[in-house]
């Protein structure tokens, strides 16, 4: 145990085991609490729905309603109080709330401070009507709010003759059954046993990092898996108990409701308690039958789903713990620590910049990637990321969008909003722009580099101007120049005797218009880079070449171009990345006309986010753009070894 290799591996196992088991134990505790909370919620919803049906049968307004509410809440220990509000006349029809007595007793008009109550009701009404109209379940028809003291507030809409006329609010007392903590002894075993076994194993195993790492990993996974087994069975048991409890509660409520209905002489079909056990979107869970019999197949399915979600979290945990173990056992941790300690001062100076970059660059970047795994749109901005998680759906939708062209009676029709078409346009755009930029820039730089050129500073200033003018203004001016009737370009064409072109009518001419604009904008950058690199080539190289009899062209290809490589290639990489994402020109000059045929990936992503409000999908689109550019940059760098000198 004295050798560093063994020590690292043991520390790694201890830390990974501690983190993994502790996190798993906490998750298990949270899972148990969630199941208990879920049960309390469903019981409360069942009570609320039962009361809502009773009140609806009693006519939603009037004395019978008050009696129904009073008797229903009185006979049930699990219900603290309830109230019924009817929208017309802003009326509080019935209430067993302690403060609604005396001159504030129901029926009365709602007071000014009770506006949030009224708004809640209207929200439920709008949600119920939208769900009914759209035949979808997008809006919450029932709102369950946990209160500070552990009780639950359930609000459900009240319908009469198919229209929502009011709503009902019910406060359920804190549940009698409290969630049990996760068992601690399996966690302790899962932590201690792998370490003990590992200590024994190190005496037999060779002192190699690989062997020890593998052994450590195996033991760690074994320990965690054992704990996972225990956790799964605990949660399954909890869920089964919860479903049974909800079923029996619903049956009991059903019996009481039937009795009450008889007492108050309310007509109607016998009550169906299983229709009261619904999600917040009013979809029945359907786990038990109207008579309270729990369907074992449905129970199985419900249990499996609970355990499955816990298990997937567990896999994530296992992965993280494994990585943590490897971090220590491969000696990486020790090396990092020694670097940090020896360069304390340097890291201290760098830390403010690192914090800044973390906040301004890394956090938004990773948030964007996280967003791309969700189905975030303008309709669900209030939900948290885990609630709207869709995994790789956005990415598969983008990549699998292969219907580029359709064959119809009139010939092939290209689907211009297709990802691959847009990718093709973007690649063509980038290649043609960079080619033009580099060629024109290099030629101008060679001209400007001629010895003894008169008025060189004036030419330099004039040639930098396209870069200096804000490209927003440039784009709008060029767009005006390409106007079919009043634009300069068409006037010139007519002067030369050619027909005027309607530039934005066909994809190719529209593309040319954008190309011309961006070409004009991009050559100054290349010119400046080339000029700088040209001036750094030693003149005696040319001297020697001339003496040897090399032609001008040979000099160019053998001396100039290779010397320009270290400067031009990074410039080309930069230019490719900038042009790939050149939003302004495409958006302002052609705006994707005609019919989105000249869109590039970045304008498409913008329109997805801000015109279609599909934020998650747009984030995935942007991540794909990033991926493409990252691949390109790495490949280009490797192929040309650009960052090395000649």
């Amino acid at each position, binding site marked *: 145990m004295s050798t560093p290799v063994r020590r690292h591996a043991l520390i790694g196992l201890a830390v990974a085991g501690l983190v993994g088991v502790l996190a798993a134990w906490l998750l298990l505790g949270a899972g148990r609490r969630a199941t208990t909370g879920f049960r309390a919620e469903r019981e409360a919803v069942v009570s609320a729905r039962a009361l809502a049906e009773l009140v609806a049968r009693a006519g939603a307004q009037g004395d019978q309603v008050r009696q129904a509410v009073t008797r229903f809440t009185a006979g049930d220990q699990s219900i603290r109080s309830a109230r019924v509000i009817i929208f017309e006349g*802003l009326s509080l029809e019935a209430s067993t709330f302690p403060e609604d007595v005396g001159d504030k007793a129901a029926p009365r008009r*709602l007071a*000014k401070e009770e*506006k949030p109550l*009224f*708004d809640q009701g*209207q*929200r439920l009404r*709008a949600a119920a*009507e*939208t769900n009914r*109209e*759209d035949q*979808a379940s*997008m809006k919450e028809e029932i709102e369950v709010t946990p209160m500070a003291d552990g009780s639950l507030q359930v609000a459900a809409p009240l319908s009469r003759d198919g229209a929502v006329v009011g709503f009902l609010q019910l406060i359920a007392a804190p549940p009698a059954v409290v969630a049990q903590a996760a068992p601690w002894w399996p966690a302790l075993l899962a932590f201690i046993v792998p370490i003990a076994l590992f200590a024994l194993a190190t005496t037999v195993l060779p002192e190699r990092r690989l062997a020890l790492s593998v052994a450590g990993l195996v033991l760690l996974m074994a320990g965690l898996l054992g704990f996972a087994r225990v956790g799964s069975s605990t949660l399954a048991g909890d869920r089964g108990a919860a479903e049974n409890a909800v079923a029996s509660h619903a049956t009991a409520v059903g019996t009481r409701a039937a009795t009450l209905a008889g007492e108050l002489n309310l007509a109607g079909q016998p009550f169906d308690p299983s229709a009261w056990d619904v999600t917040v979107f009013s979809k029945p869970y359907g786990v038990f039958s109207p008579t309270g019999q729990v369907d074992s197949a449905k129970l199985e399915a419900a249990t499996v789903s609970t355990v499955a979600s816990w298990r997937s979290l567990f896999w994530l945990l296992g992965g993280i713990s494994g990585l943590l173990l490897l971090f220590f056992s491969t000696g990486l941790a020790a090396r990092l620590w020694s670097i940090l300690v020896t360069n304390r001062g340097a890291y201290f100076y760098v830390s403010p910049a690192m914090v800044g970059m973390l906040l301004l660059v890394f956090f938004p970047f990773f948030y964007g990637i996280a967003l791309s795994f969700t*189905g*975030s*749109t*303008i*309709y*669900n*901005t*209030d*939900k948290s990321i885990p*609630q*709207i998680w*869709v995994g790789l759906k956005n990415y598969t939708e983008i990549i699998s969008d292969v219907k580029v062209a359709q064959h119809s009676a009139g010939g092939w029709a290209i689907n211009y909003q297709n990802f691959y078409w847009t990718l093709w346009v973007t690649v063509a755009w980038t290649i043609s722009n960079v080619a033009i930029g580099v060629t024109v820039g290099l030629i101008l730089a060679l001209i400007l580099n001629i010895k003894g050129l008169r008025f060189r500073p004036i030419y330099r200033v004039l040639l930098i101007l396209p870069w200096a003018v804000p490209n927003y203004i440039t784009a709008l001016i060029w767009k*005006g120049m390409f*106007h*079919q*009737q*009043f634009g300069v370009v068409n006037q010139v064409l007519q002067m030369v005797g050619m027909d005027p072109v*309607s530039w*934005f*009518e066909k994809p190719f001419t529209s593309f040319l218009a954008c190309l011309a604009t961006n070409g004009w904008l991009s050559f100054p950058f290349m010119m400046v880079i080339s000029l700088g690199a040209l001036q750094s080539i030693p003149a005696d190289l040319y001297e020697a070449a001339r003496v040897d009899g090399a032609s001008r062209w040979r000099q160019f290809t053998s001396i100039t171009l290779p010397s320009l490589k270290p400067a031009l290639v990074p410039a080309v990489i930069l230019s490719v990345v900038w042009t790939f994402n050149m939003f302004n020109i495409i958006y302002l000059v052609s705006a994707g*006309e*005609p*019919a*989105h045929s000249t869109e590039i990936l970045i304008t498409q992503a913008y*329109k997805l986010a801000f*015109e*279609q*409000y*599909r934020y*998650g999908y747009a984030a995935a689109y942007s991540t794909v753009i990033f991926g493409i550019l990252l691949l390109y940059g790495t490949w280009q760098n490797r192929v040309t070894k650009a960052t090395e000198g000649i």
Partner: protein
Amino acid sequence: MRLRGLGVLIAVLMTAGAVQALAADLVIWHGYRGEEKVAFEKVVAMFNEKMAAKGIKATTLAVPYDAFADKITASVPRGKGPDIFIFAQDRLGGWIEAGNTIDPLDFYLEKGITDRFLPVTMDAMTYKGQIWGLPFNFKCVTMIYNKKLVTTPPKTSKELVALAQKLTNAAAGQYGLAYTYADFYFHSALMNAFGGQAFDAQRKPTVNNPNNIKSLELLMKWFDQDKFLPAEPGGALITQLFNSGKAAMVFNGPWFLGEISKDIDYGLAILPTVDEAGGKPMKPWITVEGLYISASSKNKEAAYELLKFITDLDAAKIMALEGRQTPANKGIYDDAQVAADPILKAFRNQVNNALPMPNFAEMAMFWSPVTTAMNSLTRKAATPKAAMDLAQKEVEERIASLRKNP
């Protein structure tokens, strides 16, 4: 001794703080600049004077227009942001669907208060049966003509065509009528004359319904056969044509008046009736700026008092005469000074024939496909029916893909 002084100081500060807490401090966000901003601040100052006794004080904050909607979406649902904000009704549906942004006003509205507004502006503030804001002012498109070229503005479409053709000389770049007809917002006036709609009563898109197609066919007839409209009309082109006297008439809104050059003598008139639609008038879509109470506001009752004051006659007079707005309060147009102003009177007359632009969230999905369709059909790359059928399909697809998500 020193401790006692400190204690007294703390006690004084606490009571002062307690007194402040009884009063309400309201913050209003708006996107106004120039004379509108000055007029609005004057109105708010009047409110502060009136409410000084009750301790209610309002402050305004000018937020640049382009970032306005996004700032509201980012701040209000998280509990920050203003108490009241002013914005057009087109984002209303989106904010309501997203939730936690605007508070409905039904609870506060006393009987009869909505009668003081032009009914069509009140419609713009209503969504799914609830009232979400009070209308402040409206903007709509009307006919603006060059008095030197046009002595009597046309009243029917036949007169319009005849007059426009007389004043058109395409070779010299002169046009009888110029407006951004490829922008659906401007085309809506013609569409509504034929009884067309963008969305039906159940909020389903009906972009390609037969009445819409008829209105587009009339537009193409004006462009193609009667030849008095310029090609590829952009906002900048229209302004330039009108200011150089090369466009006799334009269909445009109050925002255009500030861009007209000083040497053009212009007049305003109601949009003509359309003979091809049975003599029905052209009904432009109006944009109504509404006053909304944020869901995050801590002083909603005080905010409602402010809303009532700002939409009342005294405030409307200042906004009309000094802010050059057209208020939604209908009583103000009986005021002598306001009635004497030809511009305000013209827009007031036009709003009698106007419809509110739909305020649902789905409207946002509508613009892009329809703009593509308008561009392709005005370039004669597709027939109106084909282009609109494609747009209808696209709008339906977009709405469906948005609904699909959790």
